């Protein structure tokens, strides 16, 4: 095969805008006559933290799975790094996937492998590194998520928050420039949730990664977001900066925001 001198440039009609790392246009997905996504359009810009929030079952995780090609849309377009995700052949999709890190809701660590083997998994498969270098990188990644010294443990012996952090370390192993977080703080106590949020912010500040965070926690959403999108029943009912969302007059957004609890200490 003839190698092109310059990387092929996607034609203007096919490509997403160049400052957009993720571009989703009019995305539809139906499962057994249940509409999960009903015409979602969204762009995520470089180095931004885009939060997608909404109640359980609103389609936000389904949207995330389309970004990484785990689901194929019924209709609509998904571009990541200007590549059309749904129409990529398997080999090219794999090449695109390893530029993204995905943090799963359940962490999705491989039960049969130790913490170190989990974090090393993408390194062993996609990088040609010696054992020493792999061990050093694993140690550095675990230090980044404050899980030093947990290499020999098996995932079932870890708490939910620890599993999640190991999941983040594994997602970071190949130094992705886009990280997708599916409910990173769900099921965590408030302190651990805060640690994970701080980690997401630090990764953006230190490494300049673009992040898409799916969450139903308003607390996390407003702490993290550069831009916020609110989903309800497969529709994107509002999108904008946190200030714009706070000022939104969309009834569903108002109802969702009104669930914020204000903690007050009762005077004695």
């Amino acid at each position, binding site marked *: 095969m003839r190698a092109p001198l310059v990387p092929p440039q996607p034609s203007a009609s096919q490509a997403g805008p160049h400052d957009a790392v993720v571009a989703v246009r009019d995305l539809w997905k139906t499962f057994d006559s249940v509409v999960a996504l009903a015409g979602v359009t969204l762009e995520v810009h470089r180095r931004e933290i885009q939060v997608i929030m909404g109640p359980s079952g609103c389609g936000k995780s389904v949207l995330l799975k389309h970004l*990484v090609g*785990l689901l194929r849309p019924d209709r609509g377009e998904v571009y990541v790094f200007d590549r059309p995700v749904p129409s990529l052949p398997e080999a090219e999709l*794999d090449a695109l996937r390893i530029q993204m890190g*995905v943090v799963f*809701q359940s962490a999705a660590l*491989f039960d*049969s492998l130790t913490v170190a083997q989990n974090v090393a*998994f993408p390194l062993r498969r*996609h990088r040609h590194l010696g054992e020493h270098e792999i061990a050093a990188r694993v140690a550095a990644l675990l230090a980044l998520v404050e899980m030093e010294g947990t290499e020999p443990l098996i995932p079932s012996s870890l708490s939910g928050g620890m599993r999640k952090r190991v999941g983040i370390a594994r997602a970071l192993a190949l130094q992705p420039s886009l990280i997708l977080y599916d409910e990173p703080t769900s099921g965590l106590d408030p302190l651990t949730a805060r640690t994970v949020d701080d980690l997401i912010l630090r990764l953006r500040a230190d490494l300049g990664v673009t992040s898409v965070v799916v969450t139903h926690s308003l607390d996390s959403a407003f702490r993290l977001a550069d831009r916020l999108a609110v989903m309800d029943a497969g529709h994107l009912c509002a999108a904008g900066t946190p200030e714009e969302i706070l000022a939104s007059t969309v009834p569903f957004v108002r109802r969702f925001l009104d669930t914020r609890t204000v903690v007050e200490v009762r005077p004695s």
Partner: protein
Amino acid sequence: MHEHPAHTHMPPSLPARLGGALLHDLTQIGRAALMLGSAVRWMLRGRLEVRETLAQLNRIGVESVPIVLVTGTFTGMVLAYQTARQFADFGAQGFVGGLVGVSMAREAGPVFTAITAAGRIGASMAAEIGTMAVTEQIDALRVLGTDPVRYLVVPRLLAGAVALPMVTMFANVVGSVGGYLIALGAGITSGTFIASMKRYLWPYDLVAGLIKAILFGIIIAAVGSFRGLQTTGGADGVGRSTTGAVVTAIVLILVFNYFLDLLFF
């Protein structure tokens, strides 16, 4: 609550249900064929997962030895017990060794070993891969740029195809020894039994039985892996996949056994 006008509470008619079930089965067969096709493509490309394959060989082969020692020995024993008594009435004790040897090599060795393996190995494959499917671990493999067929299915198919004939040969040997001991107890001399086995048991019988075992190993691994990958719906789904894998594998083993016999013997 609103009643949607399109929704009727009439149960679907019998033809509709049969049609639905048929469609579902055909879809599953199609998906299984796609999985096997993808597995064959990975094998032809020669990109094998050596560590995973060795681990599976150990699980299917080495770890099956104790149970096959018991099932194989008792199978040989019951063959000798039944034939030694029946044949004694006709003064045909000289056939017992041959009958035990040929029966073990052609049928009892491969089929009983495969059924034991379907319960032990097929079930554990479906449970393991099914648990991975419902806990997003299969999705995690995909997003880490690793095809689950290449990483999970191909090693199991290869290990099944290699290990099951070995375990079957082991069953043939211990079954023959079990049969020999029972024959001695029934008054057949050691020399008669061994001479009879030498005379009637041909290498062809052994080879044909082992070829059947290769196919049974592939069936067990393919069904276990496929049911595992198709699992949805949490612990309940894993349970259904596990029993489904065992039942499907045993049915396929018995059906294929018949047609292979037509071919070989």
